[in-house]
């Protein structure tokens, strides 16, 4: 499992520019928003938590189809499916690799972009914390969506249609905890719910995703 994680990490860092692309996308989305809504810093401050969360979510979405597609094409997914470790663990490791290359950099970059959007000082810590808690769920749900569409020729658009509704609860709890944190209110409830969501996804979705992959490899 560790070897698989290492392999996925080095593949995504060395080959094909998937790594960093999500970050650049996040940067561009965040920069485009002020052009759209105007430069008034009060408005930006108000919508900053939502924009940052939606941006992180879209950036995450961008690299989802890479989780399984390349392995499916060159046949290594078949090998992994017949390997001695269970397919559920393979899925979980792949989601983890996706999180390390996408969710984690997004979390670290978010405070920098929050400066551009004038987020209140109190919100920064909550922003990082909520992204840290929430992005693993994004990766895991995304891995499930990618497993559903791995056999399709042009699954990219369908993948977003399937995955985005599943992201709704994560987005709500994540953005809500930043909003509350920025306004100095209590954030325990949304953060706990967010953490619960992440833990439940990590615990249950590998089974659903592995089932989908088995169907697609049949």
């Amino acid at each position, binding site marked *: 499992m560790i070897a698989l994680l290492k392999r996925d990490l080095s593949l995504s860092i060395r080959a094909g520019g998937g790594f960093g692309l999500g970050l650049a996308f996040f940067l561009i989305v965040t920069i485009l928003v002020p052009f759209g809504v105007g430069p008034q810093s009060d408005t930006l401050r108000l919508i900053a938590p939502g924009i940052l969360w939606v941006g992180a979510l879209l950036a995450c979405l961008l690299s989802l189809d890479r989780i399984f597609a390349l392995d499916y094409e060159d046949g290594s997914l078949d090998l992994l499916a017949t390997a001695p470790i269970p397919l559920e663990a393979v899925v979980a490791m792949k989601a983890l690799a996706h999180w390390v290359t996408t969710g984690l950099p997004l979390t670290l970059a978010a405070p920098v972009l929050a400066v551009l959007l004038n987020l209140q000082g109190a919100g920064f810590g909550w922003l990082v914390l909520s992204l840290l808690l929430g992005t693993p769920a994004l990766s895991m749900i995304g891995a499930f969506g990618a497993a559903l*569409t791995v056999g399709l020729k042009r699954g990219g658009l369908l993948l977003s249609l399937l995955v985005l509704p599943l992201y709704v609860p994560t987005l709500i709890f994540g953005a809500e905890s930043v909003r509350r944190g920025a306004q100095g209110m209590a954030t325990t409830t949304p953060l706990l719910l967010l953490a619960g969501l992440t833990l439940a996804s990590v615990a249950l979705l590998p089974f659903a995703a592995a089932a989908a992959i088995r169907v697609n490899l049949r």
Partner: protein
Amino acid sequence: MSLWEYANPQKFMRTSQMVLPVLTVLTVLCLTAGLLWGFFLTPEAVNFGSTVKIIYIHVPAALMAINAWLMMLVTSLIWLVRRHHVSALAARAAAPVGLTMTLIALITGAIWGQPMWGTYWAWDPRLTSFLILFLFYLGYIALWEAIENPDAAADLTSVLCLVGSVFALLSRYAVNFWNQGLHQGASLSLDKEENVADVFYLPLLVCIAGFVLLFITLVLLRTRTEVRARRVRALITRERMA
């Protein structure tokens, strides 16, 4: 005699052929009676004026939008556990009907919202969760359309339906958390003393029965079409092999 006999497509086709005309007549009767009763023979409600009459379409459609998803969930489970093809096809057949019901509920709600709340749309929890349900239906149907192999499509959409149900439920309560609503609470519960006044309640019940029948009729009809389409496909494949 057990329910599972209908898993045999032939048996299903024979029975549904007999049941379908009866259901159609009942649907037309219920809907005509309920809607006419509701539209012309009930008084106007105190605070609503004549806009209250939209309730006879809005409420049954909303009810069926949710029940259609529940039915898809059950048939998906049956497909996953017992591999009955009719069950998978019924889930496929129900999805567009559910999508339409969701859309009807959203649109009639918007039309009703304009005079009552002064806006066509508000980000109220109920409205928002219906919009999310709409997206789930879209994704489900799109996945069915996208996959060539019918068995794989049935499997994958069933898994999506299961996971989607959990997340749809989560979203329903998450949006509650996110915004408080304009929409009134439940007023048709069976276990409550106070419901909508009887003048409106009785025709509404008839309308709900009509919509349930309409849903069953449409799903049976569409399932029959799916079964036939599957047969045609099998015949074409056999031709090619020969």
